[in-house]
């Protein structure tokens, strides 16, 4: 009889201890797998990012040092590359080229956002004659290699007297000329339920009011992606300015970078690298600032109604 109360309490700590040991083992296993996973990701990430890190490091090196090793830390850091690079070998500073890029990007991005939204809204929500034919042509343009249209476009802009101006660089995009963005927004819109727009119509909003007050706010993540893409692609566009812009005072940064390679025979790599860093900086800043929306935007669909 006395055994019963004695054995029971003794059995309890045993089970508890076993459970604790199992939990400890589990926690250790999880910790290890987490370490391995993050270690692997960190290594791969570092390999991918190394060129960028090297670029930033090298922009602070002297010209002699740049090609002496693959390390990114400069022995004797110097801002010479930035100072000389900013001055450029032209009568203008690099600031001028940034300003030129800005003058192209601003109307292009705003124009793209407005025109593509309107085009996509029409394709996604309205029935109109020849809708199918028109949408098919949008897709066809999407598949068309850019090169094919270069010469006819050049002739067209020449006849319009737009050569050596920024107009050929932004006007087509500002009139929904980028089929990719129209397509992307159409797909996003199709994934949104039309109920809200119908509710707005019942509430008395006309099509334009519905677009502005209801559709655009819901479209915001996709629109931010569109603006980001357009910003980055324009910033990096080299061929467009090369074809249409001929005066140095109108060069955007992409051409200006090339300029510093062209004009001197033994060119200073640290100046070029320093200016490259400055060139990618705006895109990087904008991207990281808007990263959350950007990812939301390109993973269109899968949103709860």
């Amino acid at each position, binding site marked *: 009889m006395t055994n019963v109360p004695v054995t029971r309490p003794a059995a309890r700590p045993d089970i508890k201890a076993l459970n604790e040991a199992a939990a400890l083992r589990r926690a250790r296993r999880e910790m290890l797998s987490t370490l391995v996973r993050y270690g692997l990701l960190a290594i791969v990430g570092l390999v991918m990012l190394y060129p960028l890190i090297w670029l930033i490091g090298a922009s602070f090196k002297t010209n002699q040092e740049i090609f002496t090793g693959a390390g990114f830390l400069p022995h004797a850091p110097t801002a010479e590359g930035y100072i000389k690079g900013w001055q450029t070998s032209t009568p203008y500073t690099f600031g001028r080229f940034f300003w030129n890029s800005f003058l192209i990007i601003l109307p292009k991005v705003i124009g793209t956002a407005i025109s593509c939204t309107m085009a996509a809204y029409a394709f996604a929500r309205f029935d109109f004659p020849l809708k199918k034919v028109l949408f098919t042509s949008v897709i066809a343009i999407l598949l068309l290699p850019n090169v094919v249209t270069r010469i006819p476009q050049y002739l067209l802009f020449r006849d319009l007297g737009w050569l050596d101006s920024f107009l050929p660089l932004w006007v087509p995009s500002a009139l929904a000329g980028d089929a990719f963005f129209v397509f992307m927004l159409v797909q996003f819109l199709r994934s949104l*339920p039309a*109920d*809200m727009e*119908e*509710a*707005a*119509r*019942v*509430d*008395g*909003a006309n099509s334009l*009011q519905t677009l502005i*007050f*209801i559709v655009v*706010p*819901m479209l*915001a993540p996709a629109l931010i992606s569109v603006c980001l893409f357009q910003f980055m692609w324009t910033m990096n566009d080299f061929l467009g300015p090369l074809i249409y812009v001929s005066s140095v005072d109108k060069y955007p940064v992409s051409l200006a970078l090339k300029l510093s390679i062209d004009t001197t025979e033994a060119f200073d790599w640290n100046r070029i690298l320093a200016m490259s860093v400055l060139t990618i900086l705006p895109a990087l800043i904008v991207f990281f600032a808007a990263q959350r929306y950007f990812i939301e935007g390109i993973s269109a669909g899968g949103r709860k*109604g």
Partner: protein
Amino acid sequence: MARVQLRNLEKVYGNAFKAVHGINLDIADGEFMVLVGPSGCAKSTTLRMVAGLEQVSGGEIYIGDELVNDLSPSKRSIAMVFQNYALYPHMKVRGNLAFGLRIQGLPRAEIKEAVDHVARILEIEPLLDRLPKQLSGGQAQRVALGRALIKKPGVFLFDEPLSNLDAKLRASMRVRITDLHRQLKAEGLSSTVIYVTHDQTEAMTMGDRICVMQAGRIMQVATPKELYNHPANLFVAGFIGSPEMNLIDGALEGTDFVIGTQRLPLSGEVIARLTGRPAQAVLGIRPQHLVLAGEGPALSARLLSAEFMGHEVNLHAQLEGQRIVAVVSADQFEALGDTATIRLQPEMKSVHLFDKEDGRNVGLGQQQLAA
């Protein structure tokens, strides 16, 4: 006056599919009309045509006395509550309620007053500064209701507004909506309601009148009681009521209804009500009106299973190869013991006879038909 009239209303889709087959319906001012039917019966399409969200292919829609076929939704004096609420996700509750008035260009103070008034009625004042995603289903539905209410429309259109809610909430919202309708009516405000649902409980408990639809056609328009007691055809008989009405195939021979080897003598009253003698007939009797028989003429059926519902028991049985259900009290079920065969007697005043070919109820009598 917010009377709604549908005249030969038709809807044909682009692929030549005819969804609505020329329906006629009169909805009186202040009436609560429920459109009910199975999925795909075009009840929502009909409602959307009234709202102006769907193009009318043929016929006319009048709201008040105005032909509204080509009017935009905002000019029809309607407000709509959608199945999934359709709240504007980027606006707070306050913004959602105010949107319609803002579009109308009302002064700010007036909008605020209207929003506060509606919020008070629907008890959503604490929610005014929340976003729709921060609301529960019931709260979102109340906001959607508020958005309709604030416009003071002539006609409220509800498109299955409760189907996304859980059963308990649905029951309380049902009461809330009917109360609101009554309140509006008492205040002398225009309060015609067209309410679409596939749930017959909602239809029966909420509607002043119910319009039962099937495949783009109206099967019967009547009060819930009339619909339950005097279904005009087989479809309505099978659709309204739970458990479903027993529809037993057989033939009329003299004053007897013959099912396989069994004969059920019909009362003189039933025979007198007949407006036709179909070759193939269907006898309709609700499970509640099928009682366990003592002596006298009865149908004997083999008991298959029993569902205990609490105060009553649903008996599933087989009658000459046809499945039937009878509802008996728990006590009666106890008394049955282990019996394998039960004797059932239909209450004669609740017996319906249908023509199997066209589905018409031939047992309604001339008087009911005229009504």
